[in-house]
């Protein structure tokens, strides 16, 4: 008798791998019936591990790797932002737009008006979010690859305009901006931001509001027939996601004390997408996990120069084709399920 196991291999055997959910889920995936501290701990453990782990990480690392953690968190936030709008059915190839807008707004406020980072970063996050949502407002009705194309092109336009007009420092960019007080402030600021985004976005998706977003991804016509203005919801989603990314951009502006055309570079688009794909699309934990795998790995590969882009691009393609669920969902499944071999007839 031929049986097909879950990984798609067909083998002639009388055994089959059976997967059983641990008995903690009751009825639906959002209604839990916790009956003991042990079960509570079972759910709490992975979440606490992430938070505590991230907060402790800078304490044990040297300066160089602490800096790597900063970059990782920035990419992590961009990845979260990508995953968030993806869970509302919008596929962006332009995280660099949100990132760059935030960076430039912070840079302008600091360079021309002399605002301190304490003010520029929050203002840039909000203003960046609003600008991004407004820029994409006319194309919100586009779906799939067409939306992706627009988001892919907008950061290029931004870079070209600055290059052509020489405004905002032109190719040279704005430099000698106010730095953040020290590396400790920087690393904890960005780590906390990452944690807030991670759990914040998860929380939003768990509410009924998030349900509407998931519905838009599945079937936007049915959402419209439910008298819900999907464009308004999409604009709000974009605002939230773009604010997070713009925050990261503004942070980087002050962290590097510089903002220039590189903020619109491909790196800030493709690395977050690659991270999310490797970690697992949907559910946000995958995005963070992916960036914590990819970015340090790339950093270790920095010696080989531009090969690292080759490396993560191909890795992303590999994951999309071979392991589309991503590492996180694979791990989560292992954590939540028993596996055992059973014999079949």
């Amino acid at each position, binding site marked *: 008798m031929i049986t097909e196991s879950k990984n798609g291999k067909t083998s002639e055997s009388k055994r089959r791998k059976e997967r059983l959910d641990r008995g903690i889920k009751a009825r639906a995936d959002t209604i839990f019936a916790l009956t003991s501290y042990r079960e509570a701990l079972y759910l709490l453990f992975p979440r606490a591990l992430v938070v505590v782990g991230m907060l402790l990480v800078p304490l044990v690392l040297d300066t160089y790797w602490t800096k790597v953690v900063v970059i990782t968190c920035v990419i992590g936030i961009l990845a979260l932002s990508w995953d968030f709008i993806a869970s509302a059915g919008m*596929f962006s*190839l332009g995280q660099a737009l949100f990132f760059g807008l935030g960076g430039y707004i912070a840079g302008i406020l600091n360079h021309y008006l002399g605002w301190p980072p304490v003010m520029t970063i929050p203002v840039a996050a909000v203003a960046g979010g609003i600008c991004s949502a407004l820029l994409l407002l006319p*194309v919100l*009705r586009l779906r799939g*690859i067409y939306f992706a194309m627009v988001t892919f092109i907008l950061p290029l336009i931004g870079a070209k305009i600055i290059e052509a007009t020489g405004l905002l420092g032109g190719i040279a960019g704005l430099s000698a901006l106010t730095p953040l007080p020290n590396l400790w402030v920087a690393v904890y600021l960005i780590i906390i931001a990452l944690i807030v985004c991670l759990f914040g976005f998860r929380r939003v998706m768990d509410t009924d509001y998030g349900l509407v977003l998931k519905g838009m991804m599945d079937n936007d016509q049915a959402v419209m027939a439910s008298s819900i203005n999907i464009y308004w919801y999409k604009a709000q989603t974009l605002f939230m996601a773009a604010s997070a990314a713009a925050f990261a951009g503004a942070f980087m502006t002050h962290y590097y004390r510089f903002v220039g055309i590189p903020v619109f570079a491909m790196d800030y688009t493709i690395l977050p997408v690659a991270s999310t794909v490797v970690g697992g699309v949907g559910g946000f934990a995958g995005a963070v996990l992916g960036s914590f795998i990819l970015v340090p790995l790339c950093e270790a590969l920095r010696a080989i120069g531009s090969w690292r882009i080759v490396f993560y691009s*191909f890795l992303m*393609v590999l994951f999309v084709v071979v392991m589309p669920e991503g590492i996180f969902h694979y791990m989560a499944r292992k954590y939540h399920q028993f596996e055992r071999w059973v014999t079949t007839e």
Partner: protein
Amino acid sequence: MIGMIIYGLVNSAVFVLMAIGFSLTFGISGIANFAYGAFYITGAYVCWHLFNSLGLYYPIAIALAVLASGLLGTLVYRYLLFRIRGISLSEVIATFGLGIGMLELYRSIGLTGHSYKLSVFVEGAVEVFGVYVDYQRLIILGLGVFLLILLWAFTHHTRIGLAFRGIAQDEQTALCFGIETENISVLSFAIGSALAGLAAITIMPLSLLAVEEGGNVLILVLAVGIVGGLESTLGVVVASLIFGFSQIIMATYFSPHYSMIVTLAAIVVILAVKPSGLFGKFKELEERV
């Protein structure tokens, strides 16, 4: 003035050559090949190596390079895209990642610099209405027109061509009529890739062979496809004419920087205002909106 018209026409033919492969693949298999720029560059590099490293006779090198591009497309479809057909997000990520990866790979192994230049097919220039135009540009113009006619004849008067159109209209119905949609999709992807290679080999002699061209070509191709209406051949021609002439005009009267901005802005404006493109049909509108 006459010079501008002639160069505008040639430039438009460049756009047609570039975009026709992308448009064909998208129109038939529904795959937006974001690795198109990388395929384009690949064709040129293969040709360069066949000619300069292996010392093959130039026409043979060209033929082999075009075949190699087609083969590359077939392999990519067979081993990557085949497994994720229909999931548009995955298709975009896979082709996009593949394109960037390939281009960066070329950069990493040092395929840059002044030594990389494809030679023109025929040396020399000729005077047309008082303007000197080199033969290569005339070849581009001729090839562009020839390919358009060929494509039209192919899709309207051959069995495979009709199958192509059938699938473009409704894949499932085509399947019911015994058209093997998977084979046709492979074929359309392979032909699209081969056309990318051919376009590169024809156009690249006008400038240096550079990795950066890959990204630019992708953007221009998207621009032509979107403005004209993807999968509409007439749209490709009209959009190519628009971009071909506007680029020449912009470069003559303003800075060349602006021609790229205009191109990019045109994509966004068209998508915002008339998502089906200038010549798109209703079906596409349904898919885009």
